[in-house]
């Protein structure tokens, strides 16, 4: 599916307004220029892959989008309106949910407690208002069944889940709480082939529900099949956004795996051999 067909699926006129947009955003950490003049749009129901070398500024960009950092320059618009988030909670309230690779889940807490952390359903009034564990368990069971994970006991610790299942639970949580935009920072980097497939399949499901996804990954084999468009960052600047047609698989693999560097390395090694 190319960006064009992804665009043509939703028919309402609002579908063409970007759900997220940054215009010439810059971010400095002391003397480090982490981002410089980066612009990007995200459309409803598309998967945008954020590509680039280590230190290119990918995490910094998504931390701005998710309210962890504030941009030093530039504009940030959500559904066409300028915003300034002071905390991840504010971004969350605008339907922008982020799943971090390492921060996704707390292993010793139960699935249910993790799922509802910060948004626990309650029952009762006043001093008798309490965490409605029974309802929470039922919701978790139902939400996970939707994505094909059958848990016997929602109160089992998250640590007993596999890495892929943990990611899936984290994403399911974001979707359940009404995320319009899902931001995933390297969700598949620590996963085996099968588990990564579970997560990618789930991302496709989320997209089918009209959720927009920003996906950071170093693995071209994960990015290419699922991505609709690709934004490439290099040393804090954007090299542009490309659709699948504009960026053939080989070209992307070459860019992502540092093709030039590898060729250069090959030449050097050749030199030693001679």
């Amino acid at each position, binding site marked *: 599916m190319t960006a064009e067909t992804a665009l043509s699926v939703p028919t309402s006129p609002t579908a063409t307004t970007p759900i997220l947009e940054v215009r010439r955003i810059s971010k400095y950490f002391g003397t480090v220029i982490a981002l410089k003049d980066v612009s990007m749009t995200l459309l409803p129901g598309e998967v945008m892959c954020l590509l680039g070398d280590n230190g290119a500024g990918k995490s910094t960009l998504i931390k701005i989008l998710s309210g*962890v950092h504030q941009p030093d320059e530039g504009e940030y618009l959500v559904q066409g309106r300028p915003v300034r988030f002071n*905390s*991840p*909670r504010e971004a*969350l309230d605008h339907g922008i949910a*982020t799943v*971090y690779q390492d*921060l*996704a*889940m*707390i*292993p*010793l*807490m139960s699935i249910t*407690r993790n799922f*509802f*952390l*910060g*948004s*626990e359903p*309650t029952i009762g009034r006043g001093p008798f*208002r*309490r*965490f409605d*564990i029974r309802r929470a368990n039922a919701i978790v069971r139902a939400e996970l*069944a939707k994505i*094909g*994970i*059958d*848990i*016997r*006991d929602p*109160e*089992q*610790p998250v*640590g*007993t*889940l*596999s890495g892929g*299942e943990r990611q899936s639970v984290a994403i399911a949580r974001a979707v359940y709480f009404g995320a319009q935009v899902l931001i995933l920072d390297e969700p598949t980097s620590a996963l085996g082939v099968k588990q990564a497939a579970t997560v990618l399949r789930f991302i496709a499901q989320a997209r089918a529900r009209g959720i927009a996804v920003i996906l950071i990954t170093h693995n071209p084999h994960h990015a290419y099949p699922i991505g609709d468009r690709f934004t490439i960052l290099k040393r804090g600047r954007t090299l542009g956004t490309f659709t699948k047609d504009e960026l053939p698989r080989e070209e992307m693999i070459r860019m992502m795996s540092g093709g030039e560097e590898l060729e250069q390395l090959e030449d050097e090694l050749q030199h030693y051999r001679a």
Partner: protein
Amino acid sequence: MVTRIQTEAPRDERMLRENLIGKLLRRPELGAVGGALLVWILFALVAGDRGFLSLRGTANYLEVASQLGILAVAVALLMIGGEFDLSVGSIIGAAGMAIAILSVEYGWHIWAAIGVSLAFSLLVGALNGILVVRTRLPSFIITLGSLFIIRGATIGLTRLITGRTQVGGVKGTLGYDSAASVFASTLSIPDPASQRGLSAEFSISIFWWLLIAAIATYILLRTRPGNWIFGIGGDANAARNVGVPVNRMKVILFMATAASAWLVATIQVLSAGGADTLRGEQREFYAIIAVVIGGTLLTGGYGSAIGAVFGALTVGMVQQGIIYTGIDSDWFKVFLGAMLIVAVLVNNFIRKRASEAK
């Protein structure tokens, strides 16, 4: 423990049982309950005929356990939230001395003295918490500092005001009787084992201990803030990212431990009729030991208030039980230290089995 929907296996009765055992194993307090039972049986065998099993013996170790337990329950919440408080022992000394000086030296009504002492303790707790949250230094360091500051200031100020390090005469102060009925009364039950017709005196601190444990357990397991405590101890950043007010919760937890120290101080001052600047020394370590024996993880995010109750009970039984055995009570600390290490090993083992990926 996770299977795909397609492979839905018939749930046989064996699996159900395993699930139940698994559920039990996942409770943090399991080890502590077993340990307390073991210690009780041990002393019942060794010293059962020398008074350990009598009503008076029971009232005796329950009183020791209750004062430690009040602290331990609050410290458990704080440690589940990922922080330490080494200053609780010093706060006991300061809060108790505040009550004694205000009521005896300045002639305040005892309830006013108790109230001001509580306000002072909450303030100290809040300061501990705010310092930890603002400086991002380990709470171990911050509260180690306040341990010395508070103790030193208590001794210095007391000597400055009274010229002594002990203040007596609280029993003669205004309003003492009503305060004592709340914090220092006892329930007398005739001890059938006593030849001389003595009664066992069950201290009201036992009631406070159980009440606080019940409230703490309810908060921890059945309220939103309880879930946040687990969250901030497990991963403060992750909790913050989903909107948990991490800093506010931490400050509240430090205030809670300080308040528990105040309660212990109030009970001690009213029962003893006076205060000593050295009161509460090393109580912070006993509280941590009780909490850790109770199955709470030193690194936070896991544990229970009920575990702390049984941890305190165990420490209390050992401390008083040893007297009944006839062994010199100097050996108590040897037992305590060894028990701590064994308890941590056992708890780690149980937790690993219960909560790691298969």
